[in-house]
């Protein structure tokens, strides 16, 4: 089946199209040429759904970033396109407007487009600065941005630090709003499941919003007719699974071993793009790196942006594979292309042959170019993974994940610190240990802290304090939660990793990387807890089969978390299980009849609050593929943003230095 019905169930393309339409409409509303002022972090996001050339067609002359008071006055119309959550941004806008107004001779027309909504605070700040009346204000309700057909992201880069460092729930609210919009389009999620305290908050907020939606809908006169019957349970979406990142920090901290994951680790994917030296792509030998592990040598080589999405010929088939298998796959492709080329050379005698060759040429060339790019990238990554430091680091990580006594790896970590590997690498290992064993013995921790401060600078007192606040790096004493037997459903404060590792089979010794049979392939042995949680709901029999090899034991049946309640109580955070029913039984019945009585393929939405890694995405795609084969169901992933270990730890890392 080329176009699987389930693939159409939640159409992410629609979201892209709508975002583009809405933005262009707003731009069109300002007559004539205009300068566009963007928040830097938004530039990539906007680029995901509209090209710069299209913006130019709509009269955008120049694009500026909001930062250093660089808005120029070359055009009469100035449009600001910004996120409105942050009071600081608003203040900057207000200052810029004042600045331009006082310096420029022309009478400027200012417009501000707030993403995703106009906030009260923004109005208040603008008013305080006396510019509220100066600008035409509108909003662009941009919530989910599809990165792929099965992956929607809110692209809130700061949501990890907001949620866990600053404990600020803005992104919970944004997520709830985004999911609510999804519900408005596709119907209520019949069941909301989740794990983690923030997941609970999100689920509560979703229910609150649902009850408020009735009132909201009717105060918006343009929509009354559509929503006048209230929301009914969806017939395309089966359930919503919310995973709070806090439940599973180790998966983020571990080094991803899929191709896409390693690209992200080494080059940093943002908005489906990476920026690399042209030398890497040219296949030419890159300059020798002083330190294996640093992502970018500080050469002045020109950088190029490489888009990484399903428009690439080879990437979709490569990205989710374990990196160990990438080499052979690329080899095969190269051989195939070569033989194609030879065939063409032999054949090009008649005009007809020539024509068919020419018609094939573009796709052939695209494939060739893609092959070249990926070979270059793979070689670059290989340089890193072959280095001694990388294997030392990986050894520590895999030992920790497999559950060996953490004190055995302490020496290795100390050596890594002495060898001056990047700070984030060290922090990731330490945080991994801390998370897996609920803290590091305080004497060891103090010693590590001292070494880190000496090796990387005393400014990292702040880094370490922030890591502790997030709960990534803590002394063991402060966590006694999981020994408390009465905590129960209220949620644990700590996860009993040893028990969970066993009951959910988080470590698989004989993992197959080439032809994977378990999600553990993404970390070459470790099966991410977050994905296992999803499997608890969607692949009950498979998971219990893994654990219970005894014949005769029956796999758990029923929906929701059923069958895994015991395990869940050993994992930190609240457990969510809500069933949503429509107001109006008749209406939901009618909807069902309209959709056809037979149960169509259904979609599970898995939402990661606080970020998802590419390795997890790969694992979920793997699960989705299995589900699709067995029952035609499918997974769509939603997230606040895509995260990696470096980004998670980076939320805490102090970037300033003592300087004169």
């Amino acid at each position, binding site marked *: 089946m080329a176009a699987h019905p389930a693939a159409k169930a939640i159409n992410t393309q629609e979201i892209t199209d709508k975002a583009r339409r809405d933005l262009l409409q707003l731009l*069109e*509303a*300002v*007559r*004539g*040429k205009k300068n566009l002022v963007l928040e830097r972090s938004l530039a990539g996001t906007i680029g995901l759904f509209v090209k710069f050339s299209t913006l130019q067609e709509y009269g955008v002359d120049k694009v500026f970033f909001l930062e250093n008071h660089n808005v120029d006055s070359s055009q009469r119309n100035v449009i600001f396109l910004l996120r*409105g*959550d942050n*009071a*600081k941004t608003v*203040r900057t806008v207000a200052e810029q407007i004042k600045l331009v107004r006082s310096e420029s001779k022309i*009478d400027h027309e200012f417009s501000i487009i707030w993403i995703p909504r106009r906030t*009260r*605070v923004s109005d208040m700040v603008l008013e305080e600065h006396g510019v509220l*009346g100066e600008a035409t204000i509108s909003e662009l309700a941009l919530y989910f941005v599809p990165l792929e057909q099965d992956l929607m992201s809110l692209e809130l880069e700061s949501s990890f630090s*907001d949620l866990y460092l*600053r*404990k*600020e*729930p*803005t992104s919970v*609210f944004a997520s709830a709003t985004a999911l609510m919009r999804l519900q408005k389009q596709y119907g209520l999620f019949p069941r909301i499941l989740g794990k983690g305290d923030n997941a609970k*908050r999100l689920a*509560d907020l979703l229910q*609150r919003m649902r009850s*408020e939606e*009735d*009132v*909201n*809908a*009717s*105060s918006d*006169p343009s929509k*009354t*007719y559509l929503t*006048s019957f209230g929301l009914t349970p969806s017939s395309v979406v089966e359930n919503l699974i919310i995973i709070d990142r806090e439940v599973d920090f180790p998966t983020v901290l571990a080094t991803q071993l899929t191709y896409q994951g390693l690209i992200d680790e080494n080059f940093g994917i943002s908005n489906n793009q990476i920026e690399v030296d042209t030398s890497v792509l040219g296949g030419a030998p890159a300059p020798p790196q002083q330190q294996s592990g640093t992502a970018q040598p500080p050469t002045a080589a020109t950088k190029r942006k490489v888009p990484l999405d399903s428009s690439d010929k080879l990437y979709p088939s490569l990205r989710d594979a374990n990196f160990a298998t990438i080499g052979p796959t690329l080899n095969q492709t190269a051989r195939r292309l070569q033989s194609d080329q030879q065939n063409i050379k032999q054949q090009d005698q008649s005009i007809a042959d020539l024509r068919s060759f020419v018609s094939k040429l573009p796709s052939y060339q695209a494939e060739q170019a893609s092959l070249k790019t990926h070979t270059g990238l793979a070689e670059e990554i290989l340089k890193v993974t072959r280095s*001694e430091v990388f294997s030392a680091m990986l050894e520590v990580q895999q030992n920790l994940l497999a559950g060996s006594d953490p004190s055995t790896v302490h020496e290795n970590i*100390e050596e890594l*610190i*002495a060898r*001056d590997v990047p700070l984030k690498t060290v922090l990731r290992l330490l945080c991994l240990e801390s998370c897996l064993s609920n803290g590091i013995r305080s004497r060891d921790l*103090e010693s590590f802290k*001292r*070494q880190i*401060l*000496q*090796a*990387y*600078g*005393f*400014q990292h*007192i*702040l880094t370490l*304090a922030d890591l502790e606040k997030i709960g990534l790096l803590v002394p063991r004493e402060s966590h006694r939660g999981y020994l408390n037997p009465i905590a129960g459903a209220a949620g644990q404060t700590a996860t009993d990793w040893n028990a969970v590792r066993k009951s959910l089979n988080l470590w698989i010794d004989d993992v197959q990387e080439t032809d994977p049979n378990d999600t553990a392939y993404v970390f070459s042995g470790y099966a991410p807890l977050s994905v296992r949680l999803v499997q608890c709901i969607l692949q009950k029999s498979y998971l219990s089969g893994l654990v219970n090899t005894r014949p005769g034991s029956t796999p758990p049946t029923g929906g929701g978390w059923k069958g895994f309640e015991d395990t869940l109580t050993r994992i930190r955070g609240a457990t969510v299980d809500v069933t949503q029913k429509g*107001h109006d039984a008749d209406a939901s019945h009618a909807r069902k009849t309209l959709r056809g009585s037979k149960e169509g393929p259904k979609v599970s939405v898995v939402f990661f609050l606080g970020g998802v890694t590419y390795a997890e995405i790969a694992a979920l795609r793997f699960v989705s593929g299995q589900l699709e084969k067995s029952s035609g169901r499918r997974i769509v992933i939603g997230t606040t943003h895509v995260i990696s270990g470096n980004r998670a730890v980076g939320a805490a890392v*102090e970037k*300033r230095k*003592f*300087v*004169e």
Partner: protein
Amino acid sequence: MSKATADWTRVGDRFYRRTQLYDSIFDPDLELENYIVTGAPYSGAVALYRDESKIYSFRGSKTAKSSIDLYSCAGKLIRRITWDKGRIVAVGWSAEERLLVVTNDGTVRSYADLQSDFSPFSLGHDAEEYGVTSCKFWSTGFVALLGNNKLVAVTRYDEPRPQALASAPVGEVISWTVIPPEHTSSRSVEVLLAVDGTVHVVDAAECEDRGLQAGPFRHISVSPNGKFISLYTDDGEVWVISSDFQDRLSEYESKVKTPPKDLQWCGNNAIVLAWEDEIHLVGPNGAASKFDDYNSFVHLLPDIDGIRVLTNTVCEFLQKVPDSTEEIYRVGSTSPGSVLLDAVEQLDKKSPKADDNIQMIRSNLDEAVDVCVRAAGQEYSVHRQKQLLKAASFGKSVLDLYNSDDFVDMTEVLRVLNAVRFYEIGLPLSYEQYIRLTPERLVQRLVNRQQYLLALKMSEFLHLPVDRIYVNWARQKVRSSSTDEDSLCEEIVRKLNGKRGVSFEEVAHAAYDEGRGKLAAELLEHEPRAGKQVPLLLSVGEEFVALDKAIESGDTDLVFYVLLNLKKKMPLSSFFRTINSRPVATSIVESSAIDQDQELLKDFYYQDDRRVDGSNLLLSEALAAGDINAAADKMKMAAKLLRDSKEYTAQVAALEDAQKLLRFQEAFEKDLNEPFVGLSVNETLSKLIKTGNMKRSQKVQTEFKVSDKTFSWIRLRALVSRRYWIELEELSKGKKSAIGWEPYFNEILGAGNTKLASLFIPKCTHLAMAERIEMWLKCGLANKAGEEALKAKDRNALEELRTKATGSAQLDIDRMIAQLQKGR
């Protein structure tokens, strides 16, 4: 019953009809010629105000007071707005029946929903200085022409923002009009100004002369669909051109000396010229017809599909006869619809002809039914509606298969239309207007007229939500009722409770606006949306409740909003106490203060006794500080905060070390003339070694208790990076290494010095023989590898080596193999 065609008039090859909607509209004493009349679109309310430029007879002080009177189309007074604020320049309507009154000083008052109080806004400085000359309105905005020929546009009323358009040419504007944004290619409003002999098109960006010469144009008007423009020249000609000024479509000579008082479009294909009591209807291709049977002054109220003509005595609707109607009623029509209608009449007479008729149109009977249904929608006379529907119903019964949806829908629509056309309501909507207006907005219009019962009945009939009606009713109740607050609240709650989607917040707001704070608070408690309660709670002074509600809503923007308001209102210490017990509020204050107001945060941490946070804040300031001394001072303060407690000894020590390091680095910079500040301990060590300052590096090592292991690594890497081979060779003579010797081998090999690297191989005694062989090989010393194998007496390894080796090494290995065999 008069014939359907009685009020038809032929203009060219089309028919136009005048439908009398209502009669005896106004008080006969009302001198309509002295009034300016504007009507809301879609047969909405009509606003009358006295034209100040006309002289009128004095009738005592009572009537002299000027006012704007709002009437329904049937002449029922809806509201009288007394006016004493400056000279009115223009009065206009928006599509949702919002009344806009513009005075010459540029003040605009906007009256929403016919009942409520106005909200004012200004057209800006220029308007104030030069005065407003006139205004042109469209469904969602208007453009004002100022005394200095500047144009100011307002494109939305929910948040009006006057916007200057490109500057217009100088010279007297003889007439002008606007093309609404929805009909222009640029999607922004365009203004057509007739100046001198030509027409200028002005929008936000530019002003363009269209180069017409036949002016000056007394009147200019744009058709409802924005495609055509009609112009009235000084010599009495009417021109119709396309709105892009490319095609000249038709011309008509009025042959009247005086220019008409008004020129308006009637639908999209005819123009009406109005003089005092006479109008001309100009159809396509210059065909025209004259109506001069009005016995008093006429006003034109254009609408999307026709034009309403208003006089003291009648209100009539002039439109092109709809196609379906024409098809059925045209004299001599033999269309299926017409035959079907005739069949029903025959049936009533019990004539067999009825069946003949049906047989005649048998093949297009379905079409005939459709036409009858559609024509019924176009009729104002209930009698003819019934007849047409009866015909349709009859035709339907003969057909085997027919989808009756359209028929049923039409009967429903007609019930609604007839109800609102009733003179008490006075909304003479045509079918077309009803479809465009939408049932929802029609309900809103009924609510505006306080026809709550009809609105409710209609909503139920059409399955529309009813919450807005209840809310509006309650708001009106709050405004007008004088009963005591408790019973009023009780009454409202009783009526509204349990109704889906009812927003108590709006009602509470109305109560608050009326100054009934207590009632507002009481009503607010019934609002289901926590977030919506917040702003009002803030205005009634319930800050803490507002804060809690905001937190409950989960919307951080709201929480932040309340917090900003709170911070302004209360002393800092009590502000801190307030947020202290609310973690969400605390984190929002913290995260916003981090990049805006660190002092506030310091105070907060101090009051809350959060020492580590306070100390870290100071450290962060130290990082931001420009020079070493300031940084050191800040760190001293940071350490001082923590010193009292034992818990933080490690951190205090770190802070002290940091200061110590800075002092060291300062000294090094002075001595060695190299930058050191900003480096970490390890980096300092590395740099000292690289610059050959071993003594100093050892001092730093002991001072900061850097472990031997770490130090060895730093030294090794520093030496290798600088290729200090001699020092490294020196190290190879050492007996012990804290990190073993393998790293030395690896690092030196990595730097490419195989000879030096090989020196370290024999020292790696704890490694297995095979590994050492590998190491030798990496250095390219196969014979040494062979010796290693020989020492271990490993024949297999030697054999393997032999295959890899070349040249003399191969010979050496052969020799060793031989030796090994001999040794046996």
